[in-house]
């Protein structure tokens, strides 16, 4: 069983790597011998890969990655606090749901990029700009998931809490919030990619520090191979964050399931 799983995993990896190789080789062919040869702005594969690997030794690149992650995670932190606050409120009280839901439904589909010019006007091209945009984009998925998670609380657990005459506050912290945790993790998982996108947008469109600014500089200097290198790294960044959160989700959900089975 396990050994079969390992072989099929190795097989999948082999297929994935061959797919990537096919892509790389055809990219090189297209840009050196094929129809895109010699077109300005279409870098060759070898040039882009060289830039991608060269960035590993650039301390300014890692500083930019740090800046971007800092903005994304600061925004995410703010979004978790606000999203949980409002989500708990609208999830727990029918009346506040009626009062807030129409506003939330109107604001939620708005892409945060839309408010960028205003935020730039007020805050300037700063780290704060990136944090604000990331928070604004990350708050909605968290809010929606927390609200759903609170509604999903087992009514028997609530009855038990009541029969034990737990205070309101104690009921929230001991029963409602723990049972909403898997939903919150799902919300954070969705929110992370939004926060990362907006932290980069803050740099690219508004000149805030970080990866976005680096790619803006690459564009202005006409260095399309460097731009491709940065794109590949941003994909690595996004994919590793997604992997880490998927792992966290699995661990937490598994822990909960084990607990439920034990009970």
């Amino acid at each position: 069983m396990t050994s079969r799983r390992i072989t099929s995993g190795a097989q999948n990896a082999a297929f994935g790597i061959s797919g990537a190789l096919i892509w790389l080789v055809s990219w090189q062919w297209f840009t050196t011998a094929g129809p895109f040869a010699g077109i300005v702005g279409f870098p060759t594969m070898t040039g882009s890969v060289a830039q991608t690997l060269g960035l590993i030794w650039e301390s300014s690149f890692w500083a930019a990655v740090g800046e971007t992650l800092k903005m994304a995670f600061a925004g995410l932190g703010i979004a978790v606090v606000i999203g949980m606050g409002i989500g708990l409120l609208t999830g727990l009280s029918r009346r506040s749901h009626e009062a807030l839901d129409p506003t939330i439904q109107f604001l939620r589909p708005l892409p945060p990029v839309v408010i960028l010019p205003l935020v730039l006007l007020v805050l300037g091209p700063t780290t704060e700009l990136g944090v604000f945009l990331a928070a604004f984009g990350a708050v909605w998925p968290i809010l929606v998931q927390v609200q759903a998670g609170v509604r999903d609380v087992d009514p028997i657990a609530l009855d038990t809490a009541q029969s034990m005459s737990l205070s309101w506050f104690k009921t929230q912290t001991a029963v409602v919030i723990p049972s909403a945790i898997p939903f919150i993790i799902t919300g954070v998982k969705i929110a992370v990619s939004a926060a990362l996108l907006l932290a980069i947008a803050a740099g690219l469109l508004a000149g805030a520090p970080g990866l976005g600014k680096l790619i803006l500089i690459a564009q202005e200097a006409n260095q399309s191979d460097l731009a491709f290198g940065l794109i590949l790294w941003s994909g690595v960044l996004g994919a590793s964050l997604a992997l880490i959160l998927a792992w966290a989700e699995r661990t937490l959900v598994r822990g909960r399931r084990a607990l439920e089975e034990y009970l």
Partner: protein
Amino acid sequence: MNALRKVAVGGFIPVLVIAGYWVWATMSRNPYFPNPMRIMERFQKLWLFAKLPTDVVPSLTNFALGYVIAVFSGVIAGVVLGRIKLLRQLFAPLLDFARSIPAIMLIPPFVLLLGIGDQSKVAIIALGAFFPVVLATMDGLRRTDPALIDVTRSMQLSRWQELLVAWVPSAGPQIAGGMQTGLQFAFILMVASEMLAATHGLGYLTMQAQFTFDSASVWAGILMLAILGFGLNTLFVLARNRVLRWHIQSRATARAR
């Protein structure tokens, strides 16, 4: 009566926020936060309808063109990858990786390759909206009920008919989900690419207003973008509910049972 109460309760907070902002903006005279009257005046001057044909219609044309290209090529690629195992094994990991790239990063290389005109805008929008559609289509095909396929086999449909009457419709709800994400990506990329490099368009004008500290125009531009974003999303939901009526109804009956 009930609906009236709902509107009153739901409208309370927005009205309160706008009224509070109005009072505050009038009193503080902060240049970045003009009072709503000035924003509405500017909105009317810019968007009703002076700049509409020059800066909204071309943007929306690029948007529509890019989005339609993304949906068609995304569904076709998704069906090919979903039905042909070898291709899926080879390229699904690559697609997964491509999806992790923040879509905004794709703008600079297109600007370098195709310039700042409509061509590069359409290409950026199409590529950004393509990924969610492909992945959702593959996912939808994977979840197709095998019993349904057995039925089509027993009816001796050709492979093409099987694809068109069974596989693709049953993946419809997932495809619609991917199309909705794609719509949001397309809108973000339309606005962002105009903010970064363009000569006209809503995003461009709003960003230019920001550079000249013309805050009333910034607010008016944001209002217009918000209305467009909200309108496009609403249109999409209405169209989806119509096309997927069979699915929504069958789910409702399943729930009633």
